[in-house]
Structure formats: structure tokens, C-alpha cells
């Protein structure tokens, strides 16, 4: 049992990512605000639809239109229309302190049970004049904070933000497993041990399996957020498909040799080149090309910036480690079968 600790760890981390990743609720968020185009000098009753929030008449609710860091416009009256629906009355002044006209403003909702939440750039206000002097400074008041663990609410993504723990670790695990297979390929070329070649074969098989799972889950996710199963304008998606095709060719290459040693040698060399091709395809080109729908491309990696907050990191990194270990487990199982097959063949001869 001691020997198998890493398998227990891998399965445990994947289980943890499933349980925590699915059970932690999303933070409250604003689904839509109507009307969203306002005219300076008029009064409006904004209807605000929210997600994962429960409002009641007992707690006072503040609603602000946030102009900038120092300035905000508070709602004169807030009415609860339903559990998740609010109506906020705003008197829009004739003057705004901004330099730009028709600026897109954020809306902030603040109450005790749900905590404060913001919808950036949700309201546009058209006003006739800009006047910093006449504007009465009215900053956002103190905001409630809730201690509950939540995942961030993002419009368009909504609950699918959880896919970060299932779709992305596939690619992490695939990359690591391909790198390990390259290590064994080089080892094969040095030692010429046929068993090492079988290790490479089982690792690449599992890597391709993980890659296809990443591709198909990504396709499903794309359908819900980008509106299409597959798009050729999305660079990372297509580069990943190309990288997987390169790896599929590895198996075709293997099967085209009858001579065992030749097969092992050429496929080991091919595997090194396939990995060298995969790295720019997945990690360089999507970052160089600026128009990518994937987060973090055309610049910094997604996991470094705002795309992953601290609560998500608590699930994401265990999921990555869990899937790497699971992938290695699958590969060792396959390798043991190949090894037995090989030994049996050896005995026959």
C-alpha cells in the first residue's frame, strides 16, 4: 500500500477537485440591467436581474452607478421585485465629472446577505455637459464582505467557470506526460532497451487520450461561451488539434515498421521532434498571435492574471497535480500490459 501512495494521492486530488469544484457556489452577480442607455437630467427605474443572490426587504440594499474611483451616484430608492430582482431609482444629473461622453459605467450592489458585487461597464450615460465643479462628490460607501468561499461570477461564463478544473488540467497533464515520454525516448536512444520503448508507447497513448479529452471538452465549452463547436479564428484550438495530429502520426509511424529495433529507434526520434513541435504550437504561437479567445493569450499566461483568483487556485492546482498522477497511473497500467505481451512473445521465440 505504501508503494501506491501517489495513486491514492492522484485519485484523491481529482475527487477533491470534483467535490469542491462543483459544490462551492458562484459569487452573486448582475445578469443584466435595463435600460442600459441613460440620458443625463432624467430619472430612471433600473431593473436589475441578479444571479445567486437572495434579496429581502429586511436588509437595506445600496445600489450605485460607479463613475470612477472617487465618484459614484447612489440610487435614491431600491425596491425588491423578487428574490433575485431589484428596481433602483436613479436621478441622473445634468453634469458628470468625466472627460468622456457616453462612458460605460459599472453598477455596484451592496447588501448584508450577499455582500457587495459589481458589474463592470454595464451602463452608458449620455449627458449634455461635463462639469467637474458642479458635480457633487459622492463616493461609494462602505461595502459588505461575506466570508463564504465562492468562485468568481463572470458574465457569459457563469457556472462554466468550473470547467477550469476539468478542461485545463487535461492539457497540463498531457504536456507533462509528453515531456516524460521524451525523457524515455532519449533514454531509449542511449540504452536501446526495448522495454523503455514500450514506456514511451504507453505514455504517448495516455497523452493523446488526455489531449483528445481536452479538445472535446474544450469544444463543448466553446459552444456555450463562444457560440460555436469549432472556430478557425481561434488559434489555440487549432494549434492543439495540429499538435494532436502530429502525435497520431506517431502511432501510424510505429505500425509501419515490422522490424522491432528500427521501429523503436525511429519512433523515439519522432517523439522527440513531435514534442519539440508541440511546445511552440501550444505555448508560443497562441501568445504571439494577439487575436485569441482563450484567456491570457496574446500576452501573459492565463493562470498568472485575473483569470484565476485565490479560491480557484485552491481547486485548480490540486486538480492539475491529480490529473498528472492519474495520467501516469494509466500509463503504468498500459506499460505493464505491453511488458507482459513483450515477454510472452520473447518466450515463444
Amino acid at each position, binding site marked *: 500500500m505504501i508503494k501506491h501512495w501517489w495513486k491514492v494521492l492522484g485519485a484523491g486530488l481529482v475527487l477533491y477537485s470534483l467535490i469542491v469544484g462543483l459544490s462551492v457556489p458562484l459569487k452573486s452577480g448582475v445578469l443584466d440591467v435595463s435600460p442600459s442607455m441613460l440620458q443625463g437630467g432624467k430619472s430612471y427605474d433600473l431593473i436589475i436581474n441578479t444571479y445567486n443572490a437572495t434579496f429581502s426587504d429586511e436588509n437595506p440594499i445600496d445600489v450605485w452607478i460607479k463613475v470612477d474611483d472617487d465618484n459614484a451616484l447612489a440610487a435614491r430608492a431600491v425596491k425588491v421585485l423578487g428574490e433575485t430582482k431589484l428596481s433602483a431609482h436613479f436621478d441622473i444629473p445634468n453634469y458628470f465629472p468625466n472627460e468622456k461622453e457616453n462612458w460605460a459605467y459599472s453598477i455596484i450592489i451592496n447588501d448584508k446577505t450577499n455582500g457587495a458585487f459589481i458589474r463592470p461597464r454595464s451602463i452608458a450615460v449620455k449627458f449634455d455637459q461635463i462639469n467637474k465643479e458642479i458635480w457633487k462628490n459622492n463616493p461609494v460607501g462602505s461595502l459588505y464582505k461575506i466570508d463564504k468561499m465562492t468562485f468568481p461570477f463572470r458574465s457569459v461564463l457563469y457556472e462554466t467557470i468550473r470547467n477550469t478544473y476539468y478542461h485545463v488540467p487535461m492539457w497540463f497533464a498531457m504536456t507533462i506526460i509528453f515531456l516524460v515520454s521524451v525523457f524515455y525516448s532519449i533514454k531509449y536512444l542511449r540504452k536501446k532497451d526495448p522495454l523503455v520503448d514500450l514506456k514511451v508507447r504507453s505514455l504517448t497513448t495516455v497523452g493523446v487520450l488526455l489531449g483528445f479529452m481536452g479538445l472535446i471538452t474544450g469544444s463543448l465549452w466553446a459552444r456555450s461561451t463562444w457560440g460555436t463547436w469549432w472556430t478557425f479564428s481561434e488559434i489555440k484550438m487549432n494549434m492543439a488539434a495540429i499538435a494532436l495530429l502530429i502525435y497520431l502520426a506517431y*502511432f501510424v509511424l510505429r505500425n509501419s515498421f515490422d522490424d522491432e529495433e528500427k521501429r523503436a529507434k525511429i519512433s523515439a526520434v519522432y517523439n522527440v521532434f513531435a514534442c519539440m513541435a508541440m511546445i511552440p504550437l501550444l505555448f508560443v504561437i497562441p501568445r504571439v498571435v494577439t487575436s485569441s479567445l482563450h484567456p491570457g493569450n496574446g500576452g501573459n499566461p492565463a493562470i498568472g492574471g485575473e483569470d484565476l483568483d485565490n479560491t480557484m487556485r485552491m481547486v485548480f492546482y490540486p486538480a492539475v497535480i491529480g490529473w498528472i498522477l492519474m495520467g501516469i497511473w494509466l500509463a503504468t497500467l498500459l506499460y505493464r500490459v505491453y511488458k507482459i505481451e513483450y515477454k510472452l512473445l520473447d518466450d515463444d521465440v
Partner: protein
Amino acid sequence: MKSIKFLLTFLFVHISILFSFAAETDDIFFRSGKIYIVIGVIVIIFIGIILFLISLERKVKRLENQININE
């Protein structure tokens, strides 16, 4: 050849699942904050592992037949 066949089956099964999803209109995607997408993703990963297990079982079976422990 086995692994290629396995991958092709894998692809085929998933594509057919995706299309059967598509037939049920967009509604299923956008209900309940798109939680069904997450379920779909987990199901796809689960199916992938099941297919891996099936192919592994077939390999083991072949070995069993070879050493005649099945009789």
C-alpha cells in the same frame, strides 16, 4: 493499429454525443447558469477513461488467451 482504432472510436462516440446535444436546441446549454456544460465536460472525461479501460481489458484478455488461463 489498436490504439488508432481506439482513438477513432473515441472521437466518433464524442462527436455523436455532441451532435445529439445540439439537436436539443440551445436551451439546455443556457439553463441554470450553464451548469449542464460542466456536467457534460465531466461526462466526456469519464467516457474517455471508460474507453481507456475497455481497450485495456481487451489487451489483457488477449494475453489471457495467449497463456490459456481462460479455459
